[in-house]
């Protein structure tokens, strides 16, 4: 058995023999792993949003011919008569902006039953009561309130694009999410406030037994407003399916990043091993075994990789926040990118595996060197 502390010191000294190269290698590993973390977080967030958002009794009715055709609010009364249907709410996309045209977030005009259909939007009862009583009232998610510094009682003026003009609203309630996947960046306002006549509805949201969907569509099959009713879950999944190509591209990019990590570290370790040929040959001559050299090279590689991993994990939260902000500015909406334990475990595990792959060839070659030839080469 060899003393671990002096050998650790030897590994440290060898790793820092060329500080410039070591720094570049650490930065290379750190940056590539950071890119991997960002991409994996994007994918993870996407699947979280698109698989956990809904329960199976939440249905969405839309026009069968085109998603841009509207339904009629009066259809809700007929839907309520179908066995298994518990609640129905009209829903309009308000599609306004706050102060700046680029400042967009989800704005839905809904009826009171909407919150029975979607109980995941949780607000104190007294706030919900105040919201329901004020026709100009608004209910916003805590993330949105925090972002703009809104407090209860504040006046929020939206500028409509579908429903033209300025729309002053009173902030009456702030909701939190039932789970991490609940969108906490929405603003709800009253359907009656947006459409006092109550004629049309972009969607009708329904709480019902999933088997009711067919009955609903059958009811409107031979009318001028045929419908397509699906669970919210399947709508989201179809969206996820539609965007699977994007997700696949991100996954491929993540895999390529790992390949880059292997090449960066492998190249650095091959150079380090070449530079250390004299040391390894000398160590072998004075009695170090092949496995000692193997361990030295691997340890040096893992030391560099470890520093890169620490660097990536240290800057990842700030990078994700900056990335989310950038996406909000470019694409609108609110992006929630959190580094979760699973992603960190995957990234660290994959980076260590990549490091092992990257270092294995130089480590093996160094351990297998022929002492006599190596000594002759460096003489």
């Amino acid at each position: 058995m060899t003393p671990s502390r002096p050998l650790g010191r030897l590994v440290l000294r060898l790793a820092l023999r060329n500080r410039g190269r070591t720094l570049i290698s650490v930065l290379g590993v750190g940056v590539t792993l950071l890119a991997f973390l960002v991409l994996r977080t994007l994918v993870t967030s996407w699947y979280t949003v698109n698989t956990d958002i809904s329960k199976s009794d939440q249905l969405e009715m839309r026009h069968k011919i085109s998603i841009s055709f509207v339904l009629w609010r009066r259809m809700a009364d007929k839907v309520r008569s179908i066995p298994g249907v518990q609640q129905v709410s009209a829903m309009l996309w308000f599609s306004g902006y706050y102060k700046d045209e680029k400042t967009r977030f989800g704005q839905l005009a809904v009826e009171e039953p909407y919150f029975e259909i979607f109980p995941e939007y949780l607000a104190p009862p007294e706030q919900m009561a105040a919201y329901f009583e004020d026709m100009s009232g608004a209910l916003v998610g805590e993330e949105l309130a925090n972002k703009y510094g809104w407090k209860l009682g504040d006046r929020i003026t939206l500028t409509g694009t579908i429903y033209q003009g300025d729309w002053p609203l009173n902030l009456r309630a702030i909701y939190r999410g039932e789970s991490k996947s609940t969108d906490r960046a929405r603003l709800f306002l009253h359907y009656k406030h947006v459409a006092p006549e109550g004629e049309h509805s972009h969607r009708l949201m329904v709480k019902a037994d999933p088997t009711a969907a067919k009955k609903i569509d059958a009811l409107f099959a031979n009318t001028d407003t045929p419908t397509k009713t699906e669970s919210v879950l399947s709508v989201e999944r179809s969206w996820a399916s539609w965007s699977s190509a994007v997700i696949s591209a991100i996954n491929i990019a993540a895999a390529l990043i790992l390949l880059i990590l292997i090449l960066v570290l492998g190249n650095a370790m091959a150079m380090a091993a070449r530079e250390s040929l004299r040391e390894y040959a000398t160590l072998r001559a004075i009695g170090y075994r092949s496995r000692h050299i193997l361990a030295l090279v691997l340890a040096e590689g893992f030391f560099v990789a470890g520093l890169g991993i620490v660097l990536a994990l240290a800057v990842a939260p700030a990078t994700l926040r900056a990335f989310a902000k950038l996406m909000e500015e470019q694409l609108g909406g609110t992006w929630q990118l959190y580094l979760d334990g699973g992603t960190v475990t995957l990234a660290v595990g994959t980076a260590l595996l990549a490091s092992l792959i990257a270092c294995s060839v130089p480590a093996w070659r160094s351990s297998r060197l022929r002492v006599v030839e190596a000594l002759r080469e460096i003489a």
Partner: protein
Amino acid sequence: MSANGTPFIQLSGVSKIYRRGAESVPVLDQVDLEVPEGAFEAIMGPSGSGKTTLLNLISGIDRSSAGRVVVGGLDLTKRSEDALADWRSKHVGFIFQFYNLVAVLTAFQNVELPLLLVRLSAQERRKRVDTALELVGLADRRDHFPRQLSGGQEQRVGIARAIVTDPALIVADEPTGDLDRDSADHILALLKRLNQELNKTIVMVTHDPAAAQTAQLIRRIDKGKLITDGAPATGAAAAGTAAAKMAGQRA
């Protein structure tokens, strides 16, 4: 000869052939050699004559193509790579022409390297390294890096590294080949002390006739054959305190 009359180093019919693709290059041809325990022998010869190869076979870092190499009663030709590595760590000290110190380690850490293979307390390791550095006269340079030392001082660190495990055999490949005359003389005097005071068996390869004169016996090799047994050299160095300590540790 050892106590039982057997030579400490015994080569019988040793040949070494290097292969470069289909071509065979004979380097040693049927070499027989006997070196008694406690001897200090020099091997001289022109470049490519096979002297370094002979040294490599004696020290167990290379294998013969034919014949037997027995050192300290151990047949090296029958040992595995790991067994040879273990044997070298305990019984052989290496001195290289270009010192082969690890540039990023201090003199102390370089000398400590062979001891990392031995189960010793940190205190015992420190004691042995300090003694070895004291023996070569570099106790005050223990925390210097190789780049902060002269060539002669680097070689003395190399010698300290070679003796820190108290090996029976020291092999030196052109130990003064990269040094000026004064530094070379200092190194040669040190080798002589190791031989005379600590009874180390030393086999030294050199081009330098003056260096060879330090040895008790000069052997000449040419075209892979040992052709001459030379006259013994003369002279001895005075004993020192550090050498006595080293001998005490060995006991």
